[in-house]
């Protein structure tokens, strides 16, 4: 005999696995994070109630604030670079260019690499003795520009950030290119009849038409950079030299695992969470803006 699923229960049963899994891991970890932030806890033994002391420790910890500063700077710098370079190259590619698809395929390749691979590869490119970058500068006679790209605290963070930019450029080119190619041609034709020049066309047609692509690209790179910085920094510099590349997530992780202070680590997680949440919220609003819930 065929067991007939009740029509009423059917949609709920279908959602149930997703809801359970999401609750057990994501929601539980969220609650767990907030809860343990009020305790002194080494991650293993007994928990001791501390109230808001962990937040006090976090807020008064200058290394933490420095790491938050680096995180925010990282996110904004990387976002600006990715979008300016990505949009710029997409505009060039939108012209009648031979080899466009070759270019697209090649620049997209690093998108598929893990940050570990990309980070290792670039830490060797930056290597002072056998690195490609200094060898290149030496080769073109620009010896004055040679430096310890990852050992100089003044530039290490920039070196790390450029690796993130390198990895994602292809991704943004593809998104911008699709948006540019989606602009109706007759807009330009009409503008040409009205006697508008190239520059005016760009500012008055191309850019406004790319508005939503711009917003989504910026938000994607912002939320991405807020978290991806852990992998790159961990692999390339581990926060050094002299904490010049320390970001919030590397500091939180070493607080938890090296200093066994899970309570304080989670208090810092909660603080970081609010920074990231603002941008994540905007991104979801943007992605679901023209969606009807039905």
């Amino acid at each position, binding site marked *: 005999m065929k067991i007939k699923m009740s029509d009423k229960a059917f*949609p709920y049963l279908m959602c149930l696995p997703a809801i359970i899994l999401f609750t057990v891991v994501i929601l539980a970890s969220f609650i767990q994070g907030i809860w343990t932030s009020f305790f002194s806890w080494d991650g293993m033994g007994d928990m001791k109630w501390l109230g808001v002391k962990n937040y006090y420790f976090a807020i008064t910890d200058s290394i933490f604030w420095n790491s938050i500063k680096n995180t925010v700077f990282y996110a904004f710098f990387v976002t600006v670079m990715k979008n300016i370079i990505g949009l710029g190259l997409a505009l060039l590619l939108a012209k009648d260019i031979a080899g466009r698809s070759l270019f697209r395929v090649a620049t997209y390749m690093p998108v598929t690499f893990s940050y570990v691979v990309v980070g290792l590869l670039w830490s060797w490119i930056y290597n002072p003795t056998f690195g*490609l970058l200094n060898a290149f500068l030496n080769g073109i006679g620009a010896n004055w520009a040679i430096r310890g790209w990852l050992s100089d605290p003044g530039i290490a963070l920039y070196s790390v950030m450029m690796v993130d930019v390198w990895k994602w450029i292809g991704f943004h080119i593809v998104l911008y290119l699709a948006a540019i190619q989606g602009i109706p041609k007759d807009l330009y034709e009409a503008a040409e009849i009205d006697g508008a020049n190239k520059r005016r066309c760009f500012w008055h047609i191309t850019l406004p038409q790319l508005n939503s692509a711009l917003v989504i690209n910026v938000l994607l790179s912002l939320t991405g950079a807020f978290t991806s910085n852990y992998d790159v920094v961990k692999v390339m510099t581990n926060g050094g030299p002299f904490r010049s590349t320390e970001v919030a997530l590397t500091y939180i*992780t070493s607080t938890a695992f090296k200093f066994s202070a899970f309570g304080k680590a989670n208090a810092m997680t909660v603080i970081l969470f609010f920074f990231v949440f603002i941008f994540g919220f905007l991104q979801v609003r943007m992605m679901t803006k023209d969606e009807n819930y039905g």
Partner: protein
Amino acid sequence: MNIKSSKNISKIIIYIILLVVLIITVYPVIWMILGSLKSTSEFYINIWGIPSEPQWENYANAWNMAGIGQKYINSVFVLLLFLVITIPVNNCAAYVLARLDFKGKKAIYTYLLTGLMIPGAVLAIPIFTVVLRLGLVNSLWGLVLVYAAQAISFGTFILRAFYISLPKSLEEAAKIDGCGQFGSFVRVIMPLTIPGITTQIIFNGLTVWNEYFIASLVIRTPEKQTLPIGLSMFINQYGVNYPDMFAALVCVTLPMIIIYLLGQKTFIKGLSAGAVKG
């Protein structure tokens, strides 16, 4: 005449810019492969060029010393188990959220979407705590559980868009053919969303394949390491030769590069889907 030649010059400039960008993207990868074939002494002298005599044994060294075979098995296991869980779970939820009417639908959808606002890595330490409480530290199953949970929000979101785009009359036709609700979903509707499922496999699959942060917290012993952690551990070991390190890196990336080049259209489409919605 004048306009034409200035047009040509600007074209040349464009090509030069694109060529430079192309070299900056591709040459590091080629350099990695060249470096993996050099001898230790040549490595420091011949930085740019082609190895004078390819040292294939670098690969054997790297493969054995880093235990890359085991790490591949672990990574493939995690990826497959992840897909086996994530595809049905997300499809079932996305389907009913897209095509059926029921009480609390909006609330469920909104609840599942909140995950999009919380990038997984931010919660890494609390997630580790949950894994610890579940007794799943140093278990690949625990890792998969986390990955599957993290994939729900995006997966449901993308797949729902696919299910919505299908014509309304499908369920009725299936009903006439005598299919039950679940039967019509599995036999008639799901096969039509293969492009959506492919998108999901590429996007989430790649994320899982490359994941480092949470894996590095959850996995505690070398024999359970996935490729990203295994690789970073191997490189940080004391006294490993650079050419061997390069060879290890190539062992991990080359298969990926080949798969990407074979399916580049699907890859680019699948990975961009998050932004342009399906």
